[in-house]
């Protein structure tokens, strides 16, 4: 994206905004779906993200990367969404078979997974999103930090707290991973 185009976008040029939208809608959607796990919600939040981007265009500095800014707005929106809706419904809610986990009985394995999922869903939205991006999606800490608007150490701290809470919650449920 040329800086001049970004400059035009900040001035409210709708064509420049469309160019940006076409270039980044896939990236923003891909980021949001990793957090919310629902394609319909991810589409709605992608549009909402760009709506907020458009409204905040005057505050955007064309010298800074647009993608990172968009991702931060998208993350905040996804967090708001998860905070509103405590229970997260994954696209594929049935746990994947896990060969070699040491639990041969599929029924026991499914029970363990459902307890893990329940414990994970109980985490506060901020911890859940950080843990999901770091532990499930395995995104780099620097990228997560940028999207959440916190430091890399902040990400590490949230992951640590999420693990501690998860472990406590699982112990209460009789699971010791």
């Amino acid at each position: 994206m040329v800086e001049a185009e970004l400059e035009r976008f900040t001035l409210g040029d709708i064509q420049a905004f469309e160019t940006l939208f076409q270039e980044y809608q896939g990236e923003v959607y891909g980021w949001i779906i990793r957090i919310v796990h629902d394609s319909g919600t991810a589409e709605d939040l992608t549009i909402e993200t760009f709506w907020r981007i458009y409204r905040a265009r005057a505050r955007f500095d064309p010298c800074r990367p647009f993608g990172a800014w968009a991702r931060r707005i998208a993350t905040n929106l996804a967090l708001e969404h998860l905070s509103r809706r405590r229970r997260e419904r994954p696209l594929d809610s049935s746990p994947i078979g896990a060969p070699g986990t040491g639990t041969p009985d599929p029924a026991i394995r499914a029970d363990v997974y459902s307890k893990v999922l329940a414990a994970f869903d109980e985490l506060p939205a901020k911890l859940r999103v950080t843990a999901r991006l770091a532990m499930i999606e395995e995104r780099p800490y620097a990228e997560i930090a940028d999207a959440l608007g916190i430091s890399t150490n902040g990400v590490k701290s949230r992951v640590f707290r999420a693990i501690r809470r998860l472990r406590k919650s699982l112990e209460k449920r009789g699971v010791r991973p």
Partner: protein
Amino acid sequence: MNEQDEALKQVLQRAAPGPTDCELKRDLWPEMRQRLDRPPVQISWGDWALAAALLLCLLLFPESIPAVLYLL
């Protein structure tokens, strides 16, 4: 991450797998365009006048507040 954390991570990845498809399947621009073209919500002068009158009433007759709250 220590070994125990790594084990928890593995279990978590199996229990709550990420979406298998993160690709956007369609162009969202038409919906974005609709959103941009939607006229902003405008509050008419009549509504402002009504709100001001109600506020004035509540200030002058505070005993009416419970009745107004009940009606709301």
